[in-house]
């Protein structure tokens, strides 16, 4: 018990120190660089959320866009149609996402879906949400929702001038809270149960730990965490549509930072996001301003994603535990 508390304290200290350092970023990073930094924060946040379910609980989700989309659409709908603050939308979205996660998770565990089948079921749930939202007139169907631009800045409406560092600060605060939740979860009794169920469900059950209840709790929490970043995403980019919110590409974008960084580790998704987003920017930059030997393909689309895919394959083949996971593993030996 005491060891766990000490572990939680030291991890929280690391988090506080990192947050203090990262809070200085707007001082020296401006313009497009800051947008990249915000995208890193969103990627880290959703990755941290996914990691609770996919990493610590060991339930691989291939449909986390469902939760991201619920958060994004709840915030956007309440704001656009009823003028309700995104902060409230964020809370409502998180509750709805937790409910959706608990329901679909419970059904999936009730019917004993595992491994590939479970992953495909999560995928199907996200796709069904996408198809349903696409057909809803009150959500503006396939056109999506646009956040109305206000004349003045407002913390309550989470809207600032485009050069304001406040978006960055809100994103950073959200990620810090999400990581802190992860740390507290992992070092808590509940977190121990969740990991125990992942490692050996029958053994945990024999020791009196309810497998289904703990897995459902992890799914609900993970969904709520991801939904929060969905609401934030809409406020930053002023726009959401069904493909962006619920599409398979979003599901992959959510699980990538965790897998690249290292699943089931506290810092893995953050490290993954710090690698992935700048990597994507770099490959996109090559296409915008190609070196001489790539002149033949200048102006053609596709090259950036080809490079990205190759790098992704190499990382997956040579660092199968993720970048942070592999390093931490080597360190401990």
């Amino acid at each position, binding site marked *: 018990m005491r060891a766990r508390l000490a572990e939680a304290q030291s991890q929280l200290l690391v988090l506080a120190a990192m947050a203090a350092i990262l809070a200085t970023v707007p001082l020296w990073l401006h313009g497009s660089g800051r947008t990249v930094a915000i995208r890193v924060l969103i990627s880290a946040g959703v990755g941290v959320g996914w990691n609770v379910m996919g990493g610590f609980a060991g339930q*691989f989700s291939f449909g986390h866009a469902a939760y991201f989309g619920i958060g994004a659409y709840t915030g956007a709908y309440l704001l656009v149609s009823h003028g309700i603050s995104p902060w409230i939308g964020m809370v409502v979205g998180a509750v709805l996402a937790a409910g959706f996660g608990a329901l679909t998770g419970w059904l999936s565990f009730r019917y004993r879906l595992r491994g590939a089948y479970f992953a495909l079921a999560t995928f199907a749930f996200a796709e069904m949400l996408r198809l349903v939202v696409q*057909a809803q007139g009150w959500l503006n169907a396939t056109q999506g929702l646009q956040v109305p631009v206000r004349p003045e800045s407002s913390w309550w409406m989470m809207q600032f001038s485009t050069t304001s560092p406040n978006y960055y600060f809100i994103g950073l605060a959200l990620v810090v809270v999400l990581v802190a939740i992860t740390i507290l979860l992992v070092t808590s009794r509940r977190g121990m149960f969740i990991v125990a169920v992942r490692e050996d469900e029958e053994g945990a059950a024999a020791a009196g730990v309810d497998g289904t209840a703990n897995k459902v709790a992890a799914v609900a929490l993970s969904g709520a965490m991801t939904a929060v970043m969905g609401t934030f995403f809409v406020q930053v980019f002023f726009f959401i549509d069904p493909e962006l919110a619920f599409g398979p590409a979003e599901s992959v974008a959510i699980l990538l930072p965790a897998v690249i960084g290292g699943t089931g580790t506290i810092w893995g998704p953050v490290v993954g996001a710090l690698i992935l987003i700048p990597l994507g920017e770099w490959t996109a930059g090559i296409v915008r301003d190609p070196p001489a030997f790539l002149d033949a393909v200048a102006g053609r689309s596709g090259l950036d994603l080809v490079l990205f895919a190759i790098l992704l394959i190499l990382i997956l083949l040579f660092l199968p535990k993720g970048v942070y996971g592999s390093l931490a593993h080597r360190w401990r030996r």
Partner: protein
Amino acid sequence: MSRTEATQTLRTRLDIPRWSWGVVVAVLVVVWRWAEVSELAASGPGRTIALQALLTGLLIGGVYGLVAMGLSLIFGVLEIINFAHGAFLTLAMYVTWLIATTTGIDPYLTLLITPVIMFVVGAAVQRVVISPAMGQPLENQLLLTFALAILIENALLLVFAANPRSVRIPWASAAIGPLDFPLRLGGAIIELPRILAFLGGLVIAGGLFAFLNRTRTGTAIRAVGLNPTGAALVGVPVGRIQVMTFGIGTAVAAAAGVLVLPFLTLEPTTGAQFNILSFVIVVLGGLGNVGGALVGGLLIGLTQELGGLLFPGQSKLLPVFIIFIATLFLKPEGLFGGGAE
């Protein structure tokens, strides 16, 4: 376990065949969407639309079944969710398009060339990319194939750009014997390439089925699917069989690509639509059950087209996903039970 036994005793006592639940659901859907059904049945044009949907769904279902058979083989034997299956199909379509436009030969003749090329591509991919990840967690394998799909799609985009292309068969509208193509049946129009795709799908599926069940190699593939360790113990070269399986699965997708090219528009993302449907069909037909995949393909083809009629304004894919979830929950072993497991 006890639950399954209880269900079985119950079934023997009441003697309700499984498929009757499908009939019950179908009847419920018809009652629910009675407005649409009666409108379609009442008028002549409505009946034509319904007939057209029925025939289109059935014919494309044969192709879906073929694509899914390749996926089911890979899924069943290698236990890999291959998200690149649709991208391989697209690649095969581009290969065919390239051969047909440069040499001027009939696209259907490339059925002898494209699958062979794609067999080599698939085998190489399994050898170089997939097999090092065989023992790794599910998410790594899944992401690897997903990255492969991104790679193939965008490489095609890079080389061929996004311009839609098409291959049309000059003899598609002609009189062959007593039949006048495109065929007219009660107002519905059936194009010859769609009929050929359906028949071709059935023939290739039959060939694959015979190969798996009648040859030594096929038996070895099924053995590796059932129990790789056991297969290795009795002398089956598991690694080589796995490479071959991925190659065959890819070649089957390639054959389907050749068959659909004459009536689809070719773009780097054309194959993606087959990917998701194939997963649904594989689960519906039973993991690794190659014959089940064919029946599942026909069912999904029909569901898509008829669902589009009964639920206007909704996506054609929605009923497909509903069936998918229901299958996962209620009959995860598929409609006919697993073949390889």
